C-alpha cells in the first residue's frame, strides 16, 4: 500500500484527478444554474483569505487557513451580490470589480509579508502539482501527501453534500420560487454550495492554482451540459471528463516536459470539442 504513495507519478495523477473531480462536481451545478463565474470570484477571493489569515495568525496550512480562506471566498460573492443589488453597478461590472480587488490585495499582502513562506503569489496562481508529494503526513499507518489527503476528504464532503441535498439542489436550480414555497430553503442549499466551492478551491490551490481550478470547474461541465439531458447526467459526465483529462494530462505533460497542471486543464478541451462537434453535427442532420 505504501508503495502506491511512494510512486511520484501515481500520486501526482491521483491528486490531479481529485482536484479536477471535486471542481467539476460543484462546477456542474453552478453551470446548470448559469452562475459559472461564481467559481472565478470564489477562487480569487480565497487568495485574499489565505493572505489575510497568514497575516493575522501566521497559519500557512491547516484548518485555520481553510476556514479563513473559505470565509473570504464566500465574502467575495456576498460583496458582489450586494454591490449589484445596490443598483449602482451592473452585475458583470460588480463581479469584475470585487474579485480582482480582493485578489490584488491578497497578492500584495503575500508579496510584502510572506516572502519566505511557500504560499507565494506564483504558487496560488499556478499551483505546484509536481511537488505535492514533498509534504507528507501520516494517515492510517501510511505516509500520504497532505494535499492528496485533503483533496480526497474534500471530494468526499462535496459528494456527500450533493447526494444528501440532491432534490433541493435540483429544485432550487430550476425553480427557486417553487422550491421556496415547498419549504426546501433554496437560499440555504445555495449558500452551502458556495461554502463548499470555497473550501474546494482552497484545497485545490496548492495543486492547480486559482485559474486552472476555474477551468476544471467549468469546461467539463459545459461539455457535459451539451450532451446530457438531466442534471444528474451533467454531474456524472463532468466528473468523468475532468478525471479523464487529469489522468491523460500527467503522462502527456511529462512526455512534452511542460506544466502538469496546465496540461491537465487544457485537456478538458477534448471532451468539450467532442461534445460541441456532436451537437453541431446533429443540428445539421
Amino acid at each position, binding site marked *: 500500500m505504501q508503495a502506491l504513495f511512494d510512486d511520484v507519478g501515481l500520486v501526482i495523477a491521483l491528486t490531479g484527478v481529485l482536484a479536477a473531480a471535486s471542481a467539476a462536481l460543484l462546477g456542474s451545478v453552478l453551470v446548470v444554474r448559469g452562475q459559472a463565474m461564481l467559481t472565478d470570484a470564489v477562487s480569487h477571493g480565497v487568495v485574499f483569505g489565505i493572505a489575510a489569515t497568514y497575516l493575522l495568525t501566521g497559519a500557512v496550512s491547516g484548518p485555520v487557513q481553510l476556514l479563513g480562506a473559505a470565509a473570504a471566498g464566500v465574502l467575495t460573492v456576498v460583496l458582489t451580490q450586494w454591490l449589484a443589488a445596490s443598483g449602482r453597478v451592473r452585475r458583470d*461590472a460588480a463581479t469584475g470589480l470585487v474579485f*480582482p480587488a480582493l*485578489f490584488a490585495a491578497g497578492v500584495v499582502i503575500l508579496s510584502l509579508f510572506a516572502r519566505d513562506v511557500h504560499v507565494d503569489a506564483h504558487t496560488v496562481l499556478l499551483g505546484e502539482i509536481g511537488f505535492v508529494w514533498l509534504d507528507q503526513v501520516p494517515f492510517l499507518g501510511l505516509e500520504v501527501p497532505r494535499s492528496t489527503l485533503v483533496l480526497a476528504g474534500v471530494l468526499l464532503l462535496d459528494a456527500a453534500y450533493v447526494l444528501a441535498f440532491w432534490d433541493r439542489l435540483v429544485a432550487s436550480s430550476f425553480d427557486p420560487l417553487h422550491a421556496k414555497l415547498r419549504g426546501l430553503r433554496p437560499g440555504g442549499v445555495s449558500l452551502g454550495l458556495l461554502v463548499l466551492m470555497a473550501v474546494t478551491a482552497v484545497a485545490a490551490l496548492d495543486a492547480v492554482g486559482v485559474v486552472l481550478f476555474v477551468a476544471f470547474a467549468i469546461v467539463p*461541465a459545459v461539455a457535459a451540459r451539451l450532451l446530457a439531458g438531466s442534471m444528474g447526467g451533467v454531474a456524472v459526465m463532468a466528473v468523468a471528463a475532468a478525471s479523464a483529462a487529469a489522468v491523460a494530462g500527467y503522462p502527456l505533460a511529462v512526455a512534452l516536459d511542460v506544466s502538469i497542471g496546465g496540461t491537465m486543464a487544457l485537456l478538458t*478541451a477534448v471532451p468539450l470539442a467532442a461534445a460541441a462537434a456532436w451537437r453541431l453535427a446533429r443540428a445539421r442532420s
Partner: protein
Amino acid sequence: MPLELDPTVVTVAAGAVLLGLTSGALGTFAVLRRQSLLGDVMSHAALPGVVGGYLVAGTRTLPAMLAGALVTGLAAAALAWTLHRRLRVKSEAALGAALGLGFALGVVLLSYVQRQPGAGSAGLETFLFGQAAATLRSDLVVLMVVAALCLGAVTIFFGELELATFDPTYARARGHSVELYDAALTGLLAVAVVIGLQLVGVVLMSALVVAPAVAARQFARSLRGMFWLAGGTGAACALTGALVSAASPGLATGPVVVLVASVVAGLALLVGPERGRSAEA
C-alpha cells in the same frame, strides 16, 4: 528627499499614464455594454498570445507579443461567442470555459518556453502580474501609437458609438451598421486589455479596464465626460501603482495598480452623487 528625474522612472511613469488613459477610457464602453467579464476572458487568454509572439519573434519584442495577445484574446472571445450563440451554453459558462482554456494553454506554452535553453524567456513570467520596470523607451513609442489610434478613432466616431451603445434599434433605423460598431468596440476592448499587459499582467488587467469606468460613472453626466474622466482616473491609478511598485522590489505592478484603482472605485461608489441619487430617488 528631492525627486530626481531618473530616466527609467520617467519611462515607467509615461508608460503607465499612456496605458491607464487608454484602457480606462475604453473601459467606459465595456462597462456600459456589460462586457466586463469579456475583458477578463480576453486578458487571461492573452497569455498564450504573449508567449506565442515571443516564440515567433525569437526575442522579447513588445509589438509581436501584443499582436499575439490580441489574436488569442479575440480567439477566446470568439470561442465564448460560439459556445453561447451556436451551442446555447449560458453566457457565464461560455465565458468561463474560454477563460480557463485560454489561460491553461498559456500556462503550458509558458512552461515550454521556460524549459528551453537560452536567456530572455525568464522575463516572460512578469506578464502574469506585470512589471512596470520592464518598460523600455522603445515600448513607449508602441504605447503612444496604439493610444493615439484608439482614442482618435473613438473621438472621430463618438456619436455613432454612443448611438450603437445606447439605442441600437434607432441606430439601425438611421442606416448605421450596428454590427460593425459592435465588432469595433469589442476589438477596442481587446486593445484596451492588451495594451496594459506588460505593466499590469494578464491576471488583473481587466480590472484596470473596469474600475476607472465604474468610478467615472458615479460622477459623469455624459458619455463624453465619462470617457475622459475614466481615462484620467485610469492614468492616475496606473501612475500611482507603477511608481509604488517600481520603488519596492519584489512587488509586482499589477496588484498594486489594481488595488489603487479598486480603492478609487470604492470611494467613488460611496460618495458619488450621480448614480446614487438617481438610484435612490
